């Protein structure tokens, strides 16, 4: 047998491999990558139209609007997180690769965040300005989104792994994931709101960071367990 002594790549190497592959795929599908971001901008545009063009009124609800829109955009991008890989059989290969599936899926989740969470962090201040949000809040807004969208990506990935084999699973995915994400929304949107009122935000920011750590450390195991069930079909 040729295979008795085979050096398997280290975990960091695998993380980079998955990241490089998914980013390369994203570059070849850049139109699909942009869609959630355009969606984010469109949703935030709906509120002035539906409520009032008066910046005073919009300013009051801007943290909530931005956060809800970010949550929905993150959710929208989840649909394509695992589905293509499951459909073309690559996911099966990962399950059988002898490498920790939780790590492979965490790497994919990280790509999801890089492609949706991070652009949202960068775009939110601009959109926030259009809703009358003062510049002084930008750092807090970016910080809450950076920490919060990470949690959203992990929770969303668990839901995506659970529903990937279900036909027309996108509504189901929203039903599963949104309630789990509500605490993140609460801390994120409220922290921005507190910042707008000039109040200290260290508390909710710490909580968001704690949630992120918690989800990143335990979430991948739930993803892997869910994915093993999903590839059975």
């Amino acid at each position, binding site marked *: 047998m040729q295979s008795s002594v085979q050096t398997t790549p280290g975990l960091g190497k695998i993380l980079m491999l998955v990241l490089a592959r998914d980013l390369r795929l994203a570059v070849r599908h850049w139109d699909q990558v942009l869609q959630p971001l355009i969606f984010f901008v469109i949703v935030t545009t709906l509120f002035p139209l539906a409520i009032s063009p008066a910046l005073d009124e919009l300013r009051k609800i801007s943290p909530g609007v931005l956060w809800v829109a970010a949550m929905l955009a993150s959710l929208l991008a989840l649909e394509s997180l695992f589905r293509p890989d499951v459909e073309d059989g690559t996911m099966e290969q990962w399950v059988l690769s002898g490498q920790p599936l939780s790590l492979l899926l965490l790497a994919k989740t990280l790509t999801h965040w890089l492609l949706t969470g991070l652009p949202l962090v960068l775009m939110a201040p601009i959109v926030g300005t259009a809703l009358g949000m003062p510049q002084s809040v930008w750092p807090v807004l970016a910080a809450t989104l950076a920490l919060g969208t990470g949690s959203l990506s992990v929770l969303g990935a*668990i839901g995506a792994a*659970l*529903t990937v084999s*279900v036909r027309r*699973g996108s509504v*189901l995915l929203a*039903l*599963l994931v*949104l*309630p*789990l994400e*509500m*605490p993140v929304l*609460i*801390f994120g949107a*409220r922290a921005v709101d*507190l910042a707008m009122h000039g109040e200290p935000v260290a508390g*909710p920011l710490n*909580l968001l960071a704690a*949630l992120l750590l918690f989800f990143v450390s*335990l979430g991948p195991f*739930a993803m892997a*367990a*869910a994915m093993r*069930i*999903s590839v*059975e*079909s």
Partner: protein
Amino acid sequence: MWLWFHKLSSPPYAYRTAGLVRPWLFWPAILLMIVGAIGGLVLAPEDYQQKDAFRIIYVHVPSASLSLMIYTVMAVAAGVGMIWRIKLAHAVAAACAPIGAWFTVATLVTGSIYGKPMWGTWWEWDPRLTSELILLFLYLGYMALRASFDDTQRADRASAILAIVGVVNVPIVKYSVVWWNSLHQGPSISKLAAPSIEGSMLWPLLIMMLAFILYFGAVLCDRLRGEILRRERNASWLSESLA
């Protein structure tokens, strides 16, 4: 060998046991409910602040505790089913979900009925009610996921993961909602909590609590039997016992 025996024997055994236990839970539950209702609605004195409106706590508080307790039971059963690969545990989890969801609905309805005279509105974003609402969403998600799989075994395991993720999230939801609410008003505002309550008001509440738990047990037995029948519809023990 043991596993084989265990697997083969346990559904009929569980089916019969649940049938035997059920009346021993159901009738005491009814009896206690009557006692509790008399105690709470007739014997207990009127609240000096809330008048007769407070009496809804005799339904609301037990429902609220049960809704949370059942979710925990469900998640523990799901976890047991995952770790030890016991099908019966999955059946218990599946049977728990609709019962828990109904208790959650009961909590929300009684809470909103209570809110009308207390706050003047049918719905108040009270932290307890809000977290109950999120709990209802968690139950609905669990049942929707279960329903979306054709294969019972995959439904069992997928929904078990969701239940476990959900139960880990429940304290986080609870805490976040309390924190969220405290930004607007003091955390002690929730009148549905009964921190200091007089003895004559308390004992019917405890009786009602016990009654509800027994009632849950009885309904669980019923649902579990139904669940076992559905899962074992092709098994030989069933056709033998029906013949």
